[in-house]
């Protein structure tokens, strides 16, 4: 809560045992996974589409997208409704499935370690920073690197 230092609010979630964080600004809301509709001829990571209070949104499996192994859905499984911006700065909403949605936390910028400092990270990695809170590692994820706008727009076109 120290206002002197620059900090941002992040929503943390779990993919398996790994903890990730996304800027809360991109998060619209968190909902439970209920019914969704499968879409033919869709990419593997696209589970289908679902209805969010009258709006149809693409439902994406973050695990597949990140190349992680599949996992059964539980009652803890949540959909993060994310607002992804495209080139024209128009926002597109998507539903990204995560294993567990944890909490909203304030992370000071100085606590974020850039992955460039750590060897072995690709330049295209979706992880833009790492927070090490006494061994509890949280990877800050850039959702734009995970979910590219072109795909999304293509998906939206498909949906619409």
């Amino acid at each position: 809560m120290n206002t002197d230092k620059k900090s941002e609010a992040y929503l943390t979630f779990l993919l398996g045992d790994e903890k990730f964080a996304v800027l809360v600004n991109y998060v619209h809301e968190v909902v439970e996974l209920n019914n969704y509709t499968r879409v033919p001829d869709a990419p593997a990571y696209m589970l289908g589409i679902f209805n969010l209070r009258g709006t149809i949104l693409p439902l994406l499996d973050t695990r597949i997208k990140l190349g992680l192994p599949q996992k059964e859905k539980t009652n803890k499984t949540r959909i993060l409704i994310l607002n992804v911006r495209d080139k024209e700065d128009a926002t597109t909403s998507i539903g990204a499935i995560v294993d567990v949605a944890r909490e909203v936390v304030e992370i000071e910028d100085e606590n974020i370690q850039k992955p460039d400092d750590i060897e072995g990270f690709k330049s295209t990695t979706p992880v833009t920073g790492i927070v090490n809170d006494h061994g509890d590692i949280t990877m800050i994820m850039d959702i734009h690197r995970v979910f590219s706008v072109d795909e999304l727009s293509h998906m939206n076109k498909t949906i619409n």
Partner: protein
Amino acid sequence: MMNKLTIRNKLILTLGVLVLFVGLIFIISYSRISAINQGFNQVLDGTVEQQRNIAQLRYEVMNMIRNQRKLALSSEIQEMNDLKRRIDNNALTINERIEKVISLSSGELLNLAQALDIKIDDLIKINMDIVELGMTNSENVARNLSTKEGSNEFTKANSTLTELQTYLANNGTKEQVLTVAALDEQFHMLRSLENELILSTSPSAREVVLKEASEIENRFELYLGQLNRNLSGEGKLMLEKYTRQYAAYYDIHKKAMNMANQATNGKALELSKGQADAIADEINILIKQYYDQVKRLLENDKISNNEKYGSTIRSMIIIIAVTIILSVFMSIWLLRGITGSLNIATDAVKKIAAGNFSSDVKISTEDEIGLMLRELQVMIIKLRSSVNLAKQVALGDLVIDFKSIENHGGELDEALEQMVNNLRNIVITITNGADNVLAASQQVASVSQQLSQGSQEQASSAEEVSSSMEQMSANIQQNTENSRETEKIANKASEDIEATSLSVSETVQAINNIAEKIVIIEEIASKTDLLALNAAVEAARAGEHGKGFAVVAAEVRKLAERSQQAAAEINEISSHTVKLAEDSKGMLIQTLPDINRTAELVQEVAAASVEQNSGANQVNRAIQQLSQITQNNASSSEEMSSNAEELSTQAEELKIAISYFKVSNSQSDFNISDKKGNVSTVNNKNHGSKQEVKVQGNGAKIELDEGPADNEFSEF
């Protein structure tokens, strides 16, 4: 040269030398003993005779001297003649003896005898004088004259003179009386001188007496003349008568005086005592000398005899000693010759007997043993060549050209040749055999090793099984007891389970109720959590304004999360409990007949266990036996393996050992194989052919195995 003598010749030589020496001893001893004998004879024949003669000579000389003395002193004519005859006999005997002595004497003794002869001649000569003088017998004649005729005449004259004195005393003057008295005195003195002369022995005394007598005669003549002138008449007639009577007496007196003065008896005695005695002494001395000489000669003879005896003894001793020494030396020489040769022969024979043929026999003699040694040497050379052959064979060289060897022949060499040939065949056979044995033994070794390993594993397995069986046996017993216990427990359990089953059913009902309620709580909590999260998201998006709300949202979310967790836990626990309880119940119910059945079974089990126990024991024993057998097998197979390896190594060693024998020259391999019964080549061929056969056999097998299958396949 000595060495070239044979033993026979040596013996002959030795015996000859000994016989020679014995002969020498005989000759020398014979000559010496005869010399000694001669000496004895000489002493007996010569010296004893000499001594006898010389003793008689001496005796005769002494006898003769005694007779001389007797003769000199004798006055009886008959006695004197007798003595003279005896003296002559004595002289004759003496001459005989001296001649004999001379004839017996020689050398020094002859000189002495001759000297003795001269002396004896002198003695006889003096003897003759003495005899003559003795025979003259002047003293006795004189005495007779004096005592008989002289005395008569003296008495007549003296009586006449006394008449005259008486006449004159009456008729004559005083002067006349004195003169007649003086005349009478002179007359008596003459008479006494006459006696004195007859009795005197020495010539000087006789000379004194004669001188005195002549003085008395002169004085008597003077007195007679004075009277003659002064007297007359009757006186004168008386004086004349007296003068005549005196003259008669004076003649006799003169004769007696002469005879007395001759003193032949005395001279004879003197001669006898003087010269004859001296000669006799000389003779005695000579005889003594002769004796001494004889004695000396005898001594010399004794000494010489002793010397001869000594020298004979010495020479005998020397010769005998020399003979002994020589015979000893010759015996030693002979013995040494024989024993030396025999020793050499013995050494040689010993060496040969010991099998040592390396040294030559030293042939030092040319006797019979030498000949024997020479033959031995020949034998050794022969044997040595055989030994060399044998050594060659021992070095493994079985390729020997017997025809090229000198002195080859005899049974030994034939045997050697046969041996080498046989050895060669045997070696070849053994080499091939060893190859086969080696291959076979290697196979056996590997097989037996496998067998051994298998047996060992089997053994260990059997042991494990055995121990397991033992444990099992124990367990079975335990089981028997346990099963009985179990039966009871099972019956009890059956009852308990029925009761429990009911309780569990109730419990499950209760828990299910709880679970239903909890699900509701869980749902609520989940919703709350989601709401709180969204609230937080909203609050974060609201920025500074949403911060207070964000805190609340976070707290709510935490609560919800805790509720959710608790609910989940309860749910989980209850559902788990229900599941467990239901399972338990089901199981209990299921168990019930099972338990009953179990009770029955347990009874059977108990019965079976007893049987099982005995069976297990039997099995255990069997397994132990099996284990023992397996262990034996393992050890046997190990032994076999090691034996096979041993056999293999021995076969290799045999090969190596047998390769020691050179069966053929590498160059002349074919020649030898051609020559020597073609064993090696045949065997080699056999070996090769065997291998070929084996290969062919394998091929055939493969064909047999695969052939029909192929055919079958082709048929199908």
